[in-house]
Structures are given as C-alpha cells and as structure tokens.
C-alpha cells in the first residue's frame, strides 16, 4: 500500500557496499540511490494522498489510518532494533504515553471549562482535576508532551540502562517488564486514568467534531503526512554518519568503544527517537479510534508492534513499514472472520519469519538475487 522509499539495504553486505560509495552527494534523501528514493517517496505520497482516499470507504480509510499509526512505531523499531540491535519490547509504553497525553487534553476539552471529564464524575471520587491532569488542558503543552514525554522517559531509562552496559536479552526483558508495570499501574489508578477502560468516548479534536467523516478524513491526511515525514527523517538519520555508527555499535560494540565513541550515547539516541515516534503514533491513534486503554499498550500489543517490523524486515525502512501495515491489515481481515485462527496465524508468522527468514520479507529479494547469481556462475560459489 505504501510503496515508500527504496531503502532495501536489509543485509549487512549491502550496507557495507553502500558505505563504500562516495558520500559526496548529501541531498534531501541522504547518500545512496537518492533518485530511486525520491521516486519511491513520490509514489508513496500519491498512493497515500490520492489513491487511498478515493478508493477506500470512510470506514476502510479509518482502518488504514490506524495501520499507519502502527507503521510510525515500526519506523522507530526499525531504527532501534533493526539498525541498533536494541530489541525493545516496550514500545507500547511510549505509544501509551503519547496516547494518554493526547487523550487527557481531548477529555478536558470535551468536558468544557470548569467541568470534570465524564468518567471522573461517574466515580465521584475526584471533586477537581488532579494536579497532574491540569497542564494537559493547555493544547500546546499537551501536543508537546505527546512527543517529549515519551522521549524524556526513554532518555532517563535508557541512560540508566545503556551506561551500565545492560544489553541484549537483559534489555529486551527489562523493556518488556516496563510495559507490564506501566499497564498494571494504569489499571490501578482507576479514579484518575479510567483504569481498565482507559480514556474512552473522545468526541472532539481541537474543536473539530470527530463524528464528522470530513474531519476523520483530515485526521487521516495528518497521519499520512506525519508518517511520510518520519520515514524521511529516519532515512536521513540512517544514511548519516550517526546511522553508520549505530550499525557499527550493533555489530561490534567493543570496536566502536575502542575507536573513542561512547556506544551508550549512540544507542540512547536511537532509543529516544524511537520512543518519540511511538509517542507521536499513540497521540494520532487517539482521534482515529476515540479511545486509549491499558489493553492497547501492555506486553501483548507491545510485541505485536514488533511483529510487523520483524515480518517485513527489521533493518529495512520499507520492509518494516509495509510489514507493520500488512500485519495490522491481516489481523483485521482474519480476526473479523476467524478470531481463533488469527492467533495461530500470528504465532506461525513469528515462527516462520524469524526462524527461517531473519531478514524478513525485505531480504527475500536479496536472497533470490544472490541465488540467481550463484546459478549463473554454475553454482560453484556457495
């Protein structure tokens, strides 16, 4: 659906050849095949802004908007995990922080000045807005918080974790525990966070009525634009000097340290940027679905966010984005008809994609190309 930039450097071999190319031309799309990237990007823009809105019904377009939000998270996962080797199973936390920041503002705005959000009146426990809700009444603060709050949390946590060289499995498990703790904490704070239900029934979006299909369409366009922006900046980052360093840290952290860089900082940047992207995705998810709840951000959804990137190709931006959209679409299509079958399919997808195709679908092209080349050589080169 989103034929975006043509960065398909999924394998290390390709990354290496790319690095050898002269990097004199640093245009809008950075080094490496800028023309192809620009064409792919333009095609994606046409599909997202012209084809999809014309071809899809309002309902389907809403679903697509939802998938594009998961794709935004996948862009961050591609950076942190695919490029940096940081398997973060807690992206749901940052998605949730962004989502709750946005939802809190929209709830306050819905309630009107001086009134409490509906669920607080229902429980009758709070007579006035809790102090930490108050700043979110300000739209500028709330908007900034959707991105800066997740980034700040990631920065604090990441600097603790990476400086002490907690990595690999330790990091994955810690990030997963974070997702569990965050959702449990939200559920526990019934009176101020809506508990298990979360923040529901969001009506307006900065003064626009969300029931109006025209406004829903606008939200879709905002999401599509933000996604393209994120992909472009991620691509720029990947092809920068920093991007090379990130891959170097993934492949041999010690060597990078001996060269005089601090791998902790390199990893921290990827983690924080990925968190910001997830936060933005969460914030834009809220007006589409009208709800944010612990069920959307715990362990299971956090891993589901990773699966798309894994199936599509963790190290390739296009792969990760298409994988995220594809898997989210498959989930809707399959779970509407056969809810049980979806779980089996999802499990199988994980097993097949990671056990037998670690580079994801994006690496298929490269594998086929290499096999053809080998056959052309008479199959002598293994």
């Amino acid at each position, binding site marked *: 659906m989103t034929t975006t930039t043509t960065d398909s450097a999924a394998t290390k071999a390709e990354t290496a050849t790319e690095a050898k190319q002269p990097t004199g031309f640093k245009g809008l799309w950075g080094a490496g095949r800028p023309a192809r990237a620009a064409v792919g990007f333009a095609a994606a823009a046409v599909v997202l802004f012209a084809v999809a809105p014309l071809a899809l019904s309002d309902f389907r377009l809403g679903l697509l908007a939802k998938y594009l939000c998961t794709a935004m998270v996948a862009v961050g996962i591609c950076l942190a995990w695919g490029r940096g080797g940081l398997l973060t199973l807690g992206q749901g936390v940052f998605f949730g922080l962004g989502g709750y920041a946005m939802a809190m503002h929209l709830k306050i705005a819905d309630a009107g000045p001086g009134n409490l959000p509906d669920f607080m009146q229902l429980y009758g426990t709070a007579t006035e807005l809790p102090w930490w809700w108050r700043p979110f009444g300000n739209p500028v603060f709330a908007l900034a918080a959707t991105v800066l709050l997740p980034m700040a949390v990631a920065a604090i946590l990441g600097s603790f974790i990476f400086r002490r060289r907690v990595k690999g499995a330790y990091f994955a*498990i*810690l990030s997963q525990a974070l997702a569990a703790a965050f959702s449990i904490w939200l559920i526990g704070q019934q009176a101020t966070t809506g508990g298990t239900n979360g923040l529901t029934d969001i009506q307006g979006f900065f003064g626009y009525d969300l029931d109006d299909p025209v406004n829903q369409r606008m939200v879709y366009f905002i999401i599509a634009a933000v996604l393209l922006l994120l992909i472009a900046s991620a691509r720029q980052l990947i092809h920068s000097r920093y991007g090379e360093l990130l891959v170097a840290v993934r492949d041999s952290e010690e060597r990078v340290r001996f060269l005089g860089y601090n791998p902790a900082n390199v990893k921290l940047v990827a983690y924080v940027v990925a968190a910001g992207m997830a936060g933005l995705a969460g914030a834009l998810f809220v007006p589409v679905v009208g709800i944010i709840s612990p069920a959307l951000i715990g362990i299971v959804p956090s891993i589901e966010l990773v699966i798309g990137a894994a199936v599509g190709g963790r190290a390739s931006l296009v792969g990760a984005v298409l994988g995220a959209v594809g898997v989210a679409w498959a989930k809707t299509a399959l779970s509407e008809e056969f809810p049980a079958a979806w779980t*089996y399919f999802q*499990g199988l997808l*994980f097993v097949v994609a990671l*056990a037998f195709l670690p580079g994801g679908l994006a690496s298929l092209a490269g594998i086929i190309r290499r096999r053809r080349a080998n056959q052309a050589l008479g199959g002598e080169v293994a």
Partner: protein
Amino acid sequence: MTVILGQTFTGISIGAVLLLIALGLSLTFGQMNVINMAHGEFIMAGAYTTYVLQKSITSAGLSMLVALPVAFLVSGALGALLEWLLIRRLYLRPLDTLLVTWGVSLMLQQLARDIFGAPNVQTRAPDVLTGHITVLGGDDPLTFANSRLFILGLAIAAVVALSLTLRLTPLGRRIRAVVQNRDLAEVSGISTGRVDRTAFFIGSGLAGVAGVALTLVGPIGPTMGTNVIIDAFLVIVVGGIGQLKGSVIVAFVLGVLQSVLEYSTTVSVAKVLVLVAIVAFLQWRPQGLYTLRTRSLV
C-alpha cells in the same frame, strides 16, 4: 510483630512460587542462553495436566501426587519437541529465540483456549493442604497456610534436585561442559545436540512442576503463563544468568519486597516499585547478583 512475621511469610511464599517458575528458566535461559517465552505456557501445561488428572482420579491428594511426575513429563516433552523443531536452529541468535518462542506461546495459548475453553478452570486442593497451621496463638494469631508451606517445600526440593543433578551426575557434567565450551565438549565425544535436548527437557519439565504448584494458589487459564513469565525472567536476570544460588536469593528477596510494598502501598504501585528497584540494582551490578568471572570485555 505478628504483622511483620505474617508479611514476611507471605513474601517467602511469593518467593517460593517465583523460584519454582524461574527454576526451569535458570537451566534453559541461564545455562543454554535461550530466551524461551513459551516457558509460561509449559507452566500452563503443567496446571492443565493437574486439572485433567483430577477429572479421572477423584482423590485430590492422589491426583496431585500423580500430577507432579506426569506434568514434568508432559511439559518436558513439549520443551524437547520445541528444542528439536525450532530452537536448535537458533542457538547463535538468542534474541530471535525470544520472538520465535513468543509465537509458539501464542499458539499454545490458543490451543489451550480451544481445548479447555477461555474461562479459567479450578482444581480442588488435597484436604491436607486446605488447612493452616497456627504458629502464634493468642488474640492475634499467626497462621501459615498449608498449601503455601507445601509450595515452599516443593521449591526447596526442586532446587536441591536440580543442583545435585548438575553437580554430581554424568548428565549434569555433560550439560555444564557444553555450556562452558561447546566445541571442546563436542570434540571430547559429547553429543551436544542430545545434551541440549535433555537440558531443555529438564528445564521445561520443571515448568510443569511449577504449574502443578500454581493450581494451589490461583486459577488455571490460557493466560496464566503470560502473567508469570516476566517475573520469572526478572528473577534470573537479577540473580545472574546461569547462577542457581543467585536465582534462589533473588526470588525470596523480590518476594518479600513485593509483599512488604503491597502492604504499605497498593498491588499496582508495588509492581512498579519492584521494577524501579530492579533497574536501580542493575546499575550497581549490571550482570546480576552473581556472575561468572571471565576475561570477556563485558
């Protein structure tokens, strides 16, 4: 005083449960370096084994006695099968084992849902374990539930059995040899593939035993594995990978910490505080409580 003792005992019994669920992992994750997310579902398999056996054996006491070895075999067989089908292809990519086995765990959960239904099921505890013993009499009596004491005993027995197996038996020596230097073990004539599978069988079997114990403290359902797996991994990580004594100490410390925090705050805040404590602890000892001293750079 009674309150403190009572909370401490609660903490120790939480610790015993933690230890039981983490023990199998200390073999598969700690020794084999495989992050088996389906471990929680092996625990679930053990719990459902107890449930099934109780359907045919009406005496709750007898069915639980039978369930312990049967659950060990059932979960062990599942583990060995998983190792043979998938994990042996992934020993060089430990992070990928995490996601692959997560996929397996999803499928096992759905399988349990299809066979036993989505709602939780209940087993009857044996009569011996339903009561409690009174430790301190008087106006404010201090009582220990028998089932909790049984789990504590089971956890201790399992730790002793595992550690004796690893230290004293030829199999244990082979497992340690493979863990320490796979290539050297291979050239010494040890079939590393078979050792891997056996180690996986034992580790997963211990998950089954934990599952039997869990039927005494909570409901049995398709999602019970997910609820315990993270805690189990945290115990291993904080204890130090591959260090049995680390896991034992950390399980009890975390159990008591959790119990004390739950008493002074709420359950959900306690969970968050425990995690904060763990992150803080890893600042002090990034490799866990006990580590093998090596010359490696990390």
